[in-house]
């Protein structure tokens, strides 16, 4: 990648790469619909393994937490001057209503503020847009360029075929 300001399509490919190298979300076929400094939007196709109550057909609350962590973590990358490795410092999830079986999940996240040490984010999860399932607030630690593996940005933006 030669340009210093990747466009929406380049970010979508980079964040797709970022979430598909995560074994847990790759196992559930998480896909990136949109990615950029404004927001990240992901879709998780329904899978019966996402159930937390198979008798009632309800989504596991922990899936909401997992998706919000993933989306908020993905939103961090395009919001920084250069991609950095940023572990989750803490995460808060409010469960507005239970998710239900057989419907895909959508999760959106955005960065609210960036300081020298922390990236503040928030996210939302829904199956039906007018009825949010959960809200998440996640803060990430900035480890800085020194603690980010060399080639991290290049790996994100590498061409499709020279992956790995």
């Amino acid at each position, binding site marked *: 990648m030669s340009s210093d300001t990747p466009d929406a399509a380049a970010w979508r490919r980079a964040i797709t790469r970022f979430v598909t*190298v*995560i*074994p*847990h*979300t790759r*196992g559930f076929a998480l896909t990136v619909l949109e990615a950029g400094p404004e927001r990240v939007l992901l879709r998780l196709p329904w899978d*019966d*393994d*996402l*159930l*937390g*109550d*198979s*008798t009632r057909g309800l989504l*596991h*609350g*922990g*899936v909401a*937490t*997992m*998706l*919000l*962590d*993933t989306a908020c973590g993905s939103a961090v990358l395009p919001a920084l001057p250069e991609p950095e*490795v940023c*572990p*989750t*410092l*803490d*995460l*808060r*999830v*409010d*469960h507005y209503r*239970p998710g239900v079986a057989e419907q895909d999940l959508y999760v959106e996240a955005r960065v609210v503020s960036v300081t020298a040490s922390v990236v503040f984010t928030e996210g939302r999860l829904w199956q039906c847009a007018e009825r949010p399932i959960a809200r998440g607030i996640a803060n990430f630690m900035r480890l800085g360029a020194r603690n980010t*593996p060399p080639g991290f940005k290049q790996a994100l933006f590498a061409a499709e075929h020279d992956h790995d």
Partner: protein
Amino acid sequence: MTDQDIEWLARTRQRGDVAAWLERIPYARRIGVSADTAADGDGLLFRLAPREDNIGNVLLPALHGGVVAAFMETAATLDLMLATREPRLPRVVDVSIDYLRTARVVPTLARCELLREGRRMANVRVWAWQEEEAAPVATARLHFALGGVTTQDA
């Protein structure tokens, strides 16, 4: 809750049959959650299997923070189902988790404490650790709404 649900919950609870509860939680099975009576006799000890599929960071490698959170939420729910005065079905209201250390791809253990059981709400604290209980990888606190004891209450 239907009468059948309450009857099932009361029966499994009397036996302390946490495995029967886990049977109905596919996501907990997917990530590899199990529960046992703690060796020191102090409540339940939960375990998250170190599955490759639970990895969130391949570079370190480390477990997915969201998977650790889901494990802790499952632990809190099951612990609460056993700890309430009456059989109640908990629904999670909110979760707050602090990540203290990198969770390596080794077995993760968790223990819970019911800090408050009110008529409608419960507050549960969870500690998760790997090598040493005194060095937690994460702590969490959760609020649960407690489902009714009778169908009228639900």
